[in-house]
């Protein structure tokens, strides 16, 4: 390992911290709100199934789980694998 990348790490190490601080939240958006939103996006499960089941003719939670490909202990595979969670700008 040459010294050049090591020198780079020292040089730009401080800059990374600045970047994190510089995140500007749009008006009305707080860190707590973002945390709750993040939980909605990444950790939904039984509650969502039960709401959706109430909106189906059979009102069967197991049927909703089947449509959304439920994974035990994780949640619906349909949203877990969704591209809109992985695409990076």
């Amino acid at each position, binding site marked *: 390992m040459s010294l050049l990348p090591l020198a780079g790490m020292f040089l730009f190490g401080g800059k990374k911290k600045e970047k994190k601080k510089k*995140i500007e*939240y*749009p008006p*009305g*958006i*707080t*860190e*707590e*709100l*973002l945390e*709750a*939103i*993040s*939980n*909605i*996006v*990444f*950790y*939904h*499960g*039984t*509650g*969502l199934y*039960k*709401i*959706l089941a*109430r*909106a*189906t*003719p059979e*009102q069967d939670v197991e*049927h*909703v789980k*089947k*449509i*959304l*490909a439920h994974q035990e202990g994780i*949640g*619906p*595979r*349909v*949203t877990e694998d*969704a*591209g*809109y*969670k*992985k*695409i*990076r*700008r």
Partner: protein
Amino acid sequence: MLATKKYVDEVRDPIHSAMIAHYPLLHTILTIAMAYHTGTHNPKAAKPVEKVLNASYTLKEDYSTIKKNYRELAKAIAHHAKEQGLTTDEENTAKVMEQAFEKTFKIVDKLLPELQKLTEDRAKIAEKALKYSTDDPFVVLRNAGIDIEPELEEFRQFLAEISGKEIEPQKSTAPVVKEVNTSTALSQAKLEILSILNGLEFAGFTEEAKRKAVESSPRGLPSSLRRSSRLRTFSGSASTPSPSRSSGGASSNG
């Protein structure tokens, strides 16, 4: 590994996750609609919806923008559904998905308002209601004063309609009304003729006079009334001794 990567992604870019706050809700509700519309009750129904939401994400469209452009999105979903062999009638699917969007918005608005109106408390209520560990989301919502049941019931009716699980109410009511009308008309005619017969009986008229009265009744004697035992004695029984008369009477009465 995948989960860790996603988690890290989310931490690095919180604005990104705020923009897609409503995406999983839209995705799952529209998937249910697509499943019932196409009869594909498995994750394949989710793909056309996901493709369109991925495109929306790339175009930086949040929930409020999606609400404005939903007609175009419905067409795009229908196009992908046809490509994947879920539907053959793209136009019809687009119309159904348009309706599905309208009904989905009603549910999502109640669960998670648009970002501009979304407060921390409201987001936390939705978080708790949708959580993996929540067994009764309706209690969570009710405690927060949110009644989502009318919107869910409306969606349920919509799914029943698009999957053909319920008979249209208009078709079933129309013939019933007609039947009531005909039956009342018949009973009126029946009453009229029976009252004439009773009158003649009390006045001491002969059987021949009663038969003639039935035949010359202004309303005639409809075929369904001939089944009545009382009337049969005057119209039907008269046909046995002299068939020529009764046939003549029947034809004259129509």
